[in-house]
């Protein structure tokens, strides 16, 4: 801009048509982006409004009890969200805890390993995993993964972690096929490709100087990754985790096929549970129009949106705080 103002006449005359076209392009671009972003916000507002309209009768009738009650009784019109909130949070947490280390490790491997023989097929495979429909994961989970986990992993966990004083409550065995552990593991498998793909891109943007500087100071390859690469990529990894968490929270069909759809709250991960998306998908189609069931399901949907927003905000806060403390 400063150059233009210093030599106004000649350049002005020569470039007028081009600049005018550019200016038109600019205004079109900015107009479109504003329109789209406003439209997006309006869309979200409309969605929340519709959910709120539908959910209002249930909130009015049950008030705070809706969040603390363990009842879900369509026959007597009593509804509480607690078992579903619990199941959703437990399975998503389980999924993130198991998927995050694997994904970050995989992303590092894909970036650091020189051999293309290993890297390219792995990259393709991870991307392929992301493209598999969730109902296919559900079928595979129900007929292959769940029997395997129930036969080998559940007894193994019970015999090891289950013997420890506090953890034992988490691994009380039940004969149920579907349980929260199975659902958490299928979710982990489903979100690994997303977290890996994003983390891989983020790590690729870490400047080589940083790594080389760390190495020059005598750091080993592991130390360079830990001290230079990961801190630089931290906010990106948190973002990737949020994407994964978003999918884990909202996943419906695969979870519904594996979690056992059991009412009630159990500390044991080997007991059947239920998640918010699963109950909505299962009951909405035949929900009674006379009672509160329809409204209670919409209220659950609103709760799910609230949980997602809360977690997104919390993770942003976490990143900001850790960055401030780091610098």
């Amino acid at each position, binding site marked *: 801009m400063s150059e233009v103002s210093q030599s106004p006449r000649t350049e002005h005359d020569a470039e007028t048509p081009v600049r005018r076209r550019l200016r038109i392009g600019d205004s079109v671009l900015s107009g479109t982006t504003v329109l789209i972003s406003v439209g997006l916000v309006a869309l979200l507002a409309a969605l929340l409004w519709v959910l709120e309209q539908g959910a209002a009768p249930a909130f009015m009738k049950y008030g705070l009890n809706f969040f603390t009650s363990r009842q*879900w009784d*369509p026959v007597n019109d009593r509804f509480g969200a607690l078992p579903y909130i619990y199941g959703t949070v437990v399975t998503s947490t389980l999924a993130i805890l198991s998927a995050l280390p694997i994904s970050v490790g995989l992303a590092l491997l894909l970036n650091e390993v020189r051999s293309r023989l290993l890297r390219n097929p792995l990259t393709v495979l991870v991307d392929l995993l992301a493209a598999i429909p969730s109902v296919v994961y559900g079928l595979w989970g*129900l007929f292959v993964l769940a029997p395997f986990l*129930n036969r080998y992993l559940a007894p193994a966990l019970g015999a090891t972690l289950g013997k420890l004083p506090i953890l034992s409550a988490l691994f009380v065995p039940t*004969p149920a096929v579907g349980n929260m552990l199975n659902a958490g593991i299928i979710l982990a498998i489903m979100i690994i490709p997303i977290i890996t793909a994003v983390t891989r891109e983020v790590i690729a943007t870490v400047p080589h100087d940083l790594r080389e500087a760390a190495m020059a100071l005598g750091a080993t390859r592991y130390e360079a990754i830990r001290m230079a690469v990961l801190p630089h990529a931290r906010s990106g990894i948190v973002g990737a985790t949020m994407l994964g968490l978003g999918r884990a929270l909202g996943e419906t069909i695969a979870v519904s*096929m594996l979690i*056992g759809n*059991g009412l009630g709250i159990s500390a044991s991960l080997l007991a*059947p549970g239920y998640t918010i998306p699963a109950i909505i998908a299962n009951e909405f*189609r035949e929900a009674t129009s006379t009672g509160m069931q329809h409204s209670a399901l919409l209220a659950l949907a609103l709760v799910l949106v609230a949980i997602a927003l809360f977690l997104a905000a919390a993770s942003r806060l976490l990143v900001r705080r850790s960055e401030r403390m780091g610098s």
Partner: protein
Amino acid sequence: MRTKRFVSVFAVIALAVGALTLAGCGQSTTSTPGGTPAAFTGAALVGAGATFPGPVYSQWAQSFVKVEPSAQVNYQAIGSGGGVQQFISKTVDFGATDVSLIASETAKVSTPFIQFPTCLGAVVVSYNLPAVTTPLKLDGATIANIFLGKITKWNDPAIAALNSGVTLPATAIQVVHRADGSGTTSIFTKWLKGQSPDWASKVGAGKSVQWPTGQGGNGNAGVAASMKQTAGSIGYLELQYALSSGLPVASVKAPDGQFVVPNVDSVAKAASDLSFPITETTSILDSKVAGAYPISSTTYILIYTDQTDQAKAQTLVDFWTWALTKGQAELGTLNYAPLPDSVAKASVAELAKITVNGTAVTPSAVVK
């Protein structure tokens, strides 16, 4: 170079998948009934409702094209609740429901209508006990207590008393129920409610209820899959699904004290004393007829009697007349039970009430 190779591998896969999909589409279009729209001159019927008879109505729609090539029947299995709603708001030509209309629903219907049964089904109690080879016998109170979580072992005295001579294992009972709202659950819980005061007060009846114990599966297939993987499991399935799943089924004690094996014949017996007109209280649960399976059910069609479109009314009468007569023969292969002759005749008589602007509609010669 390597990337290029991967691209080409992907391209090959994509092409193969694409070709397969196209082939699949080609097949389905050629097998779709009424695939010759040029010859189509009759009325297209749209119906919606219960999922339970969904397979039957689609089968009938396909077969009916061979009888009356100009007719197209389009049935959407959206659930009984949705079927009744669409019928009341007159957005469909016929509604379908597993539960006969209740008074509050009938009050919303502004013009006269007919309601008639089309086929029969049943809910079957199935179990997975590899050690037991003799079919088990159960009664209502015992089944209710199992699903209430009060009976927790297979060798419980209550079960043993009904099955003298059978060695029952001490396996824990694992209850499997439907997780999705369904007419099957509605029929089963309605029956349990009549069997056990405890069930009536603690759980009640509905398309989805608050199960005191167990785990939920999606649809008949989900319940069967969970049951097959769990030794000691018990669950309930639709008749046609249970008979093809290979799981053993329990005989259930009828009101007269006899244990009845669920099959097409015993279900048909349950409907033999069905009376018209169909009302809110019409039910074939716990039928008094000897040899009738107690957890039997029927499903209904709703049609307005005052029609205005001649072609549509003719197709409606023709299709349902055919379904209630010649169409009944197709039910066996789908494992639904046909209506007893007397009930089928009474249903056809109901269809005679349909008029177009006051003139009665008689079935075409082809369906007789």
